């Protein structure tokens, strides 16, 4: 076919779209996908994701060298067995989870603080809600857009450590000590990601600027954390004889409640990191009642999400 040399190179006249329109049922997933895609563009997110597993990485390195060393002599093998006997495997998961909390907070701030606040600033709700997308779709999409990266951030190093441990140390009770450790950790990680997602979505909806929302969330996080650290000191000072209220108040922060729920689900009080046994170990704080902890946390998250539900609207309605 010979191209027409005098014809236009492109027909720029307006033509209306008459192609396929999918039933508007899963708009939340479109929003979540876009939120995640935008989050993944941030290079520092990848760094923080890698950094979140630092405890597991160091633990793997220690275990690797202990195991390699043991191959050299019988004495070293005995020493390795003594070392491994002192290790409570599920506590390593607990420690890995606890030491990832700072990274988790930073990632939450990075991807969550502007999730609704920036939309408020740019009037983006008019775009979302003028399309066949409901307020529920919007909030669920934004929530999933924060939840999934956090879940992956916490879950990936946990899974890697589990695979390494299961392949290398199963004869030392890695699996038999608690066969349900992996599903339990999935639940712990999911609850933790859900708490952060719900709270940051709620806080973000109250502001028109992501920075302000982030500063507020970080403020709540660190102030409540400071309070629980004080309570922990008080608990240690009383040699574990403090009233039950003090014991529970050590979990009264965003960070603390996650640790408490993790302890309750893993059924442990925790032990020092890397299997080291200090001469004067701190008195372990018992896990809180799981049902009460979940109910209270669920209530706080529900309040945050309700605030978001009230705030998200395309227009101000005349009362």
């Amino acid at each position, binding site marked *: 076919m010979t191209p027409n040399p005098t014809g236009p190179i492109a027909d720029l006249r307006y033509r209306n779209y008459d192609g396929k329109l999918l039933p508007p049922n899963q708009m939340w997933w479109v929003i979540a996908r876009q939120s995640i895609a935008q989050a993944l563009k941030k290079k520092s997110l990848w760094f923080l994701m890698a950094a979140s597993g630092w405890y597991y990485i160091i633990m793997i390195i220690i275990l690797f060298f202990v195991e390699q060393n043991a191959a050299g002599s019988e004495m070293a093998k005995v020493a390795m067995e003594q070392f491994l006997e002192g290790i409570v495997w599920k506590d390593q998961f607990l420690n890995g989870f606890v030491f990832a909390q700072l990274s988790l907070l930073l990632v939450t701030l990075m991807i969550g603080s502007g999730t609704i606040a920036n939309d408020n600033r*740019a009037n983006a709700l008019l775009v979302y*809600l003028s399309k066949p997308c409901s307020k529920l779709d919007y909030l669920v999409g934004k929530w999933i857009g924060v939840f999934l990266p956090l879940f992956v951030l916490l879950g990936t190093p946990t899974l890697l450590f589990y695979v390494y441990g299961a392949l290398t140390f199963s004869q030392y009770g890695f699996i038999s000590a608690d066969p349900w450790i992996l599903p339990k950790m999935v639940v712990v990680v999911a609850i933790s990601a859900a708490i952060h997602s719900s709270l940051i979505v709620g806080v973000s909806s109250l502001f028109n600027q992501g920075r302000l929302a982030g500063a507020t969330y970080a403020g709540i996080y660190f102030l409540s954390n400071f309070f629980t650290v004080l309570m922990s000191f008080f608990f240690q000072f009383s040699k574990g004889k403090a009233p039950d209220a003090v014991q529970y108040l050590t979990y009264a922060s965003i960070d603390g409640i996650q640790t408490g729920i993790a302890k309750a689900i893993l059924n442990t009080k925790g032990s020092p990191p890397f299997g080291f046994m200090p001469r004067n170990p701190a008195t372990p704080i018992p896990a809180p009642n799981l049902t009460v902890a979940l109910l209270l946390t669920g209530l706080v998250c529900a309040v945050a999400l309700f605030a978001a539900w009230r705030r998200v609207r395309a227009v101000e309605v005349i009362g």
Partner: protein
Amino acid sequence: MRYGSFTALNQFSCEIPEGSTGLLGPNGAGKTTLIKTLLGFVRPETGAGEVFGLDITKGERRLRQLIGLMPEQDCHIPGMSGVGFVAFAGELAGMPAADALRRAHEVLEYCGLGEARYRNVETYSTGMKQRIKLAQALVHGPKLLLLDEPTNGLDPAGREDMLDLVRTVSHGGGLSVLVSSHVLPDIERVCDRVIVVMKGQLRAAGTIAELKKLAGHPVDVELKELNPAFNRALIEDGMTVLPGARTTIRVQANASPAEIHLRVQRIARTTKTQVRGFRVAERSLEEAFLEVLQA
């Protein structure tokens, strides 16, 4: 439609045919409320309404698949490029991702943002932001396009471009366009029909030509120079003569414009008056609008 004690729209029923329809009314008349109600942004306490046969009080999603909104205020999704934003708007409307991206390129090209499509929307000028708002409203091929003050904040050249865009989209594009604006010349330039709203009620609806038409078919007769003898002869012939601008007089009689034309020609010949123009008199849109509001 009532919100609390405030009646926003009362016994309001109108038809928006294919082409472009202007939505006129003073501040607080209910124009924006009408747009918001059509989209289900505000849920009325009482009342009912239908668009394309779908109930607007139920906030049906299918309805919003058929409507495109270009809001008055700036709106975009932060952190996205122009093409990313428009494609995402398409996906939100239910387009498959590949179709949405292809269509986003088409629409941006059409709206004059082809060169700037990969720039972050937040770096766009006011005119470009207006254009991308139009692009995101058009991307999914709506059957009804709602434009709220489309020329807001635009310089004269940008305003001309935007009006051209709206005019070409609304004529031959197979969609109905409702343009809400305070700028009557813009409405006159772009629209064929108007709807006048006041206090939540429909005051007038019809073509602009009908709205501008004066009662009694008066005609404007333009003369080379004013001639009192000509005026007297017209009056003797049973016509009413009113002074117009410069050498124009407005003639009214109980007859059709064609009959008046013949009678005026005859009298002009007898009084030796040179007639240079003859046209059916009409009001400006502004006069018509004010009269409808005062009625």
